């Protein structure tokens, strides 16, 4: 990433310029949505790609934050209080979920995260007095962070982009940090890691909490964007879609989940207005990609690229 600084600057400039080029509000809002889901997918990938822990309940952190922020604001916490309280609450739930889910590994871990996600969904759906069930809750208005007005589509896009850039940088540092190395080591050889003095459980639990934290930040952006939260946003399908983003783009890479978020959000929102069976189309895309690029799009394209330059090398795991 450091070596490709010029490319990074070009991408950054292009992303900043999007609201100037895309004047259609529908597409600009779509771009904001992509950014939010990119953050959610990257945060999940801390677990899936770097930790080897496949979770099917990650959308619950988006939902917990969105519901908590709405409720806290309704109870008079103010914009800042609601935001901080909601993220803290959701991350704490993540800490608890982590303790429960890490009782198991592999399929067991996946099933517990799925069950926890369903419990959160069930509470949102059933606790009518608190969440108004299927009707969902309305968030009154976007805040003015640091006095900035983010009510219009371009302003909100830039705000979301700024949050995403900071989040991605911090998460990217984590993947290259000593902790990131230990997390990947615990994924590949947990028993050996213990014998080297590493506390594998604590490493994985911390990764779970950090993934929940960044998922909560995505949840905060989500509620500011939609100003509305309903159980639909935290259904199993949503959790599965986020997982699909990470796997489709390439869970073994840092950028893969972002690519996955772009493709899936586009198919869901744009293609669905032309094709009724957009879910089937998504399925077909997934099957085709996995058939030709079993490690996902980003590692697959990298492999094609290096093959085109005459040096076929196997894709590596997250590094």
């Amino acid at each position, binding site marked *: 990433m450091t070596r490709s600084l010029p490319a990074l600057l070009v991408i950054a400039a292009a992303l900043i310029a999007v609201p100037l080029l895309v004047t259609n509000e529908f597409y600009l809002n779509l771009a904001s949505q992509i950014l939010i889901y990119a953050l959610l997918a990257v945060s999940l990938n801390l677990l899936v790609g770097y930790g080897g822990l496949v979770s099917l309940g990650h959308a619950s952190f988006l939902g917990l934050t969105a519901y908590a922020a709405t409720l806290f604001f309704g109870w008079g916490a103010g914009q800042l209080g609601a935001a901080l309280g909601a993220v803290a609450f959701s991350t704490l739930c993540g800490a608890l979920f982590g303790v429960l889910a890490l009782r198991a590994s592999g399929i067991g871990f996946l099933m517990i995260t799925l069950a926890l996600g369903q419990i959160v969904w069930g509470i949102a759906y059933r606790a009518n007095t608190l969440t108004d069930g299927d009707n969902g809750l309305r968030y009154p208005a976007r805040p003015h962070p640091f006095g900035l007005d983010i009510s219009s589509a371009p302003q909100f896009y830039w705000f979301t982009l700024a949050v995403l850039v900071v989040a991605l940088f911090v998460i990217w*540092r984590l993947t290259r940090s000593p*902790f990131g190395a230990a997390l990947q080591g615990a994924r590949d050889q947990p*028993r050996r890691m213990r*014998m080297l003095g590493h506390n594998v459980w604590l490493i994985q639990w911390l990764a779970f909490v*950090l993934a929940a934290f960044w998922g909560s930040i995505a949840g905060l952006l989500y509620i500011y964007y939609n100003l509305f939260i309903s159980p639909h946003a935290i259904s199993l399908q949503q959790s599965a879609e986020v997982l699909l983003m990470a796997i489709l783009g390439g869970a073994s890479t840092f950028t893969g989940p972002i690519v996955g978020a772009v493709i899936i959000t586009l198919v869901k929102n744009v293609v669905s207005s032309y094709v009724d069976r957009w879910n089937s189309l998504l399925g077909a895309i997934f099957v085709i990609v996995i058939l030709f690029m079993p490690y996902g799009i980003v590692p697959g394209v990298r492999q094609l690229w290096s093959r085109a330059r005459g040096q076929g090398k196997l894709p590596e795991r997250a590094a």
Partner: protein
Amino acid sequence: MTAPTTTPALAVAGLNKRFGGLPAARDVSLSVMPGERRLIIGPNGAGKTTLFNLITGDLTPDAGSVKLFGRELVKLPTQQRVHLGLARTYQILTLFPKETLCHNVVLALLGLDPVRWNIWTLLSGKRHLHDAAREALARVGLSASADRTVAETSYGERRRLEMAMALAQQPKLLLLDEPLAGLSQEERQQVRELLAKVPRDVTIVMIEHDMDSALAFAERITLLHYGEVIVEGTRAEVVADPRTREVYLGE
């Protein structure tokens, strides 16, 4: 137990472990003095690796005690035992195949370094870890391969990497599980020389089948058979003991 003046580096007492009906450790007691080189021998299935797994905490004993310099280990999780100065190599290689040799040793060093919890600093900037890793690799003669991935190295090099990872942690007690297995004559010689160079503040307990190398290395020998200590003594005593021949030749 045996020497009241010094605390043994490793004191195992009354250790029992059964796998279903099969006893893998039966009242195993042994005591290894600081700086000692101890060899554990015994036919296949004698419970040698099980004994190591009980010492490291990979397995929990049904009964008995394991003390490292007088400190009871049985209730501690593996990683805490490592922090008290325990290190081991594995008979079946458990390395990080897609990482470089240097990174493998760095992971070993990180295990004992509080910086392992840092989520912000870049690992590549941690000079002290990389320097120490390269030094550990140099000690086992792997300087030239430091930047190759494990997958690109030979079996002999991996065995030496195992050793480098264990030695890099500067353990007080080092458990070596068949460090010579599967090596060529030349490689055996390298590992033997390497072991001879390990300073005496490291106590070594080794499981080995290659009797020629192992006997030259060990000061005391423990013979295990069906999870039981059959003979224990100096090199000469154990070799001369008729029970040794019975176990090995009676098969």
